[in-house]
């Protein structure tokens, strides 16, 4: 299968005693990693499975080491519903927690990646969005979808996926 998938996760958790666990989402206050000896080891967790989306199955990435909390970005693809558009689905799932997903869609150019679409969504327990961009007839580009996932009191993660195709 020619599909090329790249998946990376970045998960951050701040655990504080006294009032239980307080967890930081993405924050400008974060200044970097603690020394290894101060790092808390998280168990390996597998996120919940998801049904195969249009455009290809995507892997999920666990958020904050919390079971059932994950982010996904599917493959960008030529929409089967809207002629002339590139679609990519992405989602953040974290039962019982406010979830956020933000996806930037890019198109490959000689100077790097050109912004081609953006969308964001929030929801309680899950947030799922479709991000769209133009798909010009018979043009071939690589499209990159890069998502930021956040779940309140869980953490954050990045996922990304890219696909090269010719628009029908």
């Amino acid at each position, binding site marked *: 299968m020619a599909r090329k998938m*790249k*998946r*990376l*996760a*970045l*998960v*951050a*958790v*701040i*655990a*504080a*005693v*006294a009032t239980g666990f307080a967890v*930081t989402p*993405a*924050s*400008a206050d*974060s*200044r*970097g*990693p*603690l*020394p*290894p000896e*101060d*790092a*808390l*080891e*998280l*168990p*390996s*967790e*597998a*996120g919940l*499975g998801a049904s195969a989306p249009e455009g290809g199955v995507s*892997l*999920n*990435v*666990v958020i904050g*080491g919390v079971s059932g909390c*994950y982010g996904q970005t599917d493959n960008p693809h030529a929409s089967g519903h809207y002629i002339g558009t590139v679609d990519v689905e992405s989602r953040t799932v974290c039962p019982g927690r406010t979830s*956020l997903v*933000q996806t*930037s869609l890019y198109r490959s*150019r*000689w*100077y*790097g*990646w*050109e*912004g081609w679409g*953006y969308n*964001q969504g929030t929801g309680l327990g899950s947030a799922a969005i479709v991000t769209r961009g133009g798909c010009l007839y018979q043009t071939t580009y690589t499209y990159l979808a*890069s998502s*930021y996932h*956040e779940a309140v009191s869980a953490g*954050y*993660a*990045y996922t*990304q996926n890219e696909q090269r195709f010719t628009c029908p």
Partner: protein
Amino acid sequence: MLAALVVSCTPATPSGGSSSPDGVAEPLTALVEPPATIPVATLRSTADEAQVGLLVASHWIAADGSTHDTRPSDEIEWPQHGWDTSSPGVIELEATSMPARAEILAYDAVDAATGIPIGDGVRRVCETDVSQSRECAVSETDGKLAIQLPSTIAPYVVLWVEWYVPTTMRGSAESATRWASWGFHRLS
């Protein structure tokens, strides 16, 4: 109060999200404030040679949420001096915030009339806090970001760098990132 910051960088696995191969969370830099303005990019090949990169394109979210885009001009005037042909060089960015994504594109030739590269070129994705690609790397040295170029590279080089902008710092902008690309040229 005891607080611990744990960040892990997890490659994709067919079984879905998991921790690192050995199951141990790896310390990693968390989101930080991206550069406020588009950094200057300079290619240094020797102690005496420096080439200031040509800003080719950018997408920049200002603090007030406004977005400023720079598109490539119709005619690209590649830098002509400052890259010693005997050295691959290092590109320095006047920034300290680790980008989410950094890529190097290299081209053998450009259109004689427009200066726009011909062909797909060679793309290298750099290792960052977000990307685990090992094709190149971004490091912080002396208050600057440094991207070491490979020893063999085509003469027209583009560096594309993206920073994620935390939600609290982008106002109502319909975008989540700041990015810019710079062009460099090695005379053969």
